[in-house]
C-alpha cells in the first residue's frame, strides 16, 4: 500500500517537473522579450501543428518507420549474432575483436557512405539507425550469455543436463536483463541515427522538415519537430520498459 502511494507521489512529481519546465519556457519567452525566430513560446509551437503546409503526420510516420525499423533489425541481428557466438567459440574468437574495433567507428561518419550506397530515402536512414544501435544490443547480449555461475553449470553437469537445457533454462533467461539494458541504450541511439540520416539526405521525415523550415527561420516548426521526434523516441523507450517489466523480475534488472 505504501509502495502504491509512493508510486503515485513519484508520478505526480514527474508530471509537475515537466509542467514546470513548460512554465519556465513560457515565462522566459513572454517576459524576456525573446524574438520568435530565436525561441517561440509553447503555444506558438503547438499552433504549427494546425498550420497546413508541414505534412506533420507523413513526416512523423516516415521518421517513426526509420527508427522502429532500424531498431527492429538491430535487435534481431544483435541477439542472433550473440547467440551464434555462444554456440561457436571459434566464431566468437574471430568476430568479437573485429566487432569491438568496428564499434569504434563513429557510425555517424558512415552516413554519407550509406547514402552513396543506397541512395537517399527510408531504407538508408533505417540502416544508419541500425548501424548505430546494433552494437550495444550485441555486446550486452554476449556479456549476459557469458554470465553463468560455474557452480550452476556443475550442478547441471552432475545431472547429465544437455547444453540446450543449460541454454534455455539458465543462460538465456539469465541474459535477459543484460539484453534489456542494451535495448534501452539502443532505443536512444536509434532516434539519433535516423535523424542524422535525414539531415544527410532525404526528402521526407522530421529531420528533413527541420532543414526545410530552418531556411525560413521558422523556429516554431523546428521546435515542434524536435518535440515530435522526442515523443517517438519516448514511445520506443516506453515499449522497451514495458516489455522489460513483463519479462524480467525486479531483482534481476540491470541499468
Amino acid at each position: 500500500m505504501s509502495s502504491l502511494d509512493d508510486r503515485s507521489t513519484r508520478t505526480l512529481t514527474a508530471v509537475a517537473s515537466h509542467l514546470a519546465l513548460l512554465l519556465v519556457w513560457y515565462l522566459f519567452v513572454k517576459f524576456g522579450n525573446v524574438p520568435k525566430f530565436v525561441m517561440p513560446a509553447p503555444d506558438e509551437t503547438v499552433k504549427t501543428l494546425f498550420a497546413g503546409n508541414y505534412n506533420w503526420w507523413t513526416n512523423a510516420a516516415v521518421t517513426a518507420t526509420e527508427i522502429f525499423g532500424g531498431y527492429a533489425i538491430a535487435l534481431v541481428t544483435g541477439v542472433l549474432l550473440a547467440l551464434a557466438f555462444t554456440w561457436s567459440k571459434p566464431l566468437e574468437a574471430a568476430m568479437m575483436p573485429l566487432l569491438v574495433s568496428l564499434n569504434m567507428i563513429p557510425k555517424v561518419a558512415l552516413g554519407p557512405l550509406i547514402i552513396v550506397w543506397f541512395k537517399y530515402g527510408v531504407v538508408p536512414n533505417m540502416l544508419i539507425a541500425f548501424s548505430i544501435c546494433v552494437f550495444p544490443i550485441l555486446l550486452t547480449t554476449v556479456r549476459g550469455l557469458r554470465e553463468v555461475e560455474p557452480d550452476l553449470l556443475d550442478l547441471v553437469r552432475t545431472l547429465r543436463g544437455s547444453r540446450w537445457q543449460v541454454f534455455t533454462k539458465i543462460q538465456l533467461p539469465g541474459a535477459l536483463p543484460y539484453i534489456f539494458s542494451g535495448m534501452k541504450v539502443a532505443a536512444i541511439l536509434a532516434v539519433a541515427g535516423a535523424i542524422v540520416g535525414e539531415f544527410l539526405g532525404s526528402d521526407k521525415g522530421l529531420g528533413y522538415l527541420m532543414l526545410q523550415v530552418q531556411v525560413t527561420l521558422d523556429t516554431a516548426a523546428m521546435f515542434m519537430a524536435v518535440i515530435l521526434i522526442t515523443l517517438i523516441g519516448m514511445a520506443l523507450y516506453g515499449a522497451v520498459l514495458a516489455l522489460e517489466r513483463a519479462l524480467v523480475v525486479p531483482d534481476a534488472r540491470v541499468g
Partner: protein
Amino acid sequence: MAAEPFIHLASVAKTYGKGARAHQAISDATFDVMPGELACLVGPSGCGKSTLLKILAGLHPHDAGTVKIGSASVPFDPSRDIGMVFQAPLLLKWRTILDNVLLPAEILGLPAKESRERARALLALVGLAGAEEKRPYELSGGMQQRASIARALVHDPKLVLMDEPFGALDALTREKMNLELLRIWKEAGKTILFVTHGISEAVFLGTRVVVFTAGPARMADDFAIELPHPRTLDLKTHEAFGVYTRRIYKLLGME
C-alpha cells in the same frame, strides 16, 4: 556384521598441471562412509577438500587410487543420485522458489506432477512452507540456502554433497542452519558429505570427520564422532566435544 560402505576411497590423489608447475591438490585420501552417514571434510583453504567433492560428483577425474560409490545393497547411479549444495544458494532469480527447487527434476525429465508434490513437501521439510510462489530476492540468505537444500533433494538422490553451504551466513543463522540440517538429514535419510573449515561445525554435525591439511595437501585423519543424537547446542559445552575439536586443532597445527 560389518555393512558395506557406501563410499570407499583408497589412496586417491589428484595433481593439477605438469612438471615444475604441478600442484598436488590431494594425496592419499583414504576413508569409508557408511550409508546414511553425515561425514564432514574439514581443513583449511587449499587442502583439497573441495577438489575431493568435485571428484565424488564426477566433475573432475582423479589421477590415482580408487573411488567407489554405491554397494550391492545401495546401488548408485551417478547421473541422478547426486544432489549439490554450494556456498552461494545460486537460485535462478527469475524463477519462483518452487520452480527453483524443481530444476533438477526438469533436467532429469522426472514426472512433473509427482515432482511438484515432492518439491512442496521438501519446502515444508526445510521450513519454507508458504514461500513456494516467492522469488529468491524476497527471501533472506539463510532462507535461500534452505531452498537450495530442497533443490538438492528434489530428485531423491542417495548422496548429497555440500560445499561450505553455511560459510556465507552470519554466525547465528549458521548455528540455526546446523540444527536444521541435522533434522533434515534425519528425516531425509541421505548420505551427506559436508565440506567446511569450521572445526566445531564439523564435530557438531558429523558422524565422521575427515581432516585435511594444506601445504602439502594431504589427508591427516579420519575418525567417527561418537556423540549422541539428536544433537543440541548444549553438546558444544560437553567435555567430549572439546576433546574432538582439540584433536582437529592439533592435526591442523594450531595448538
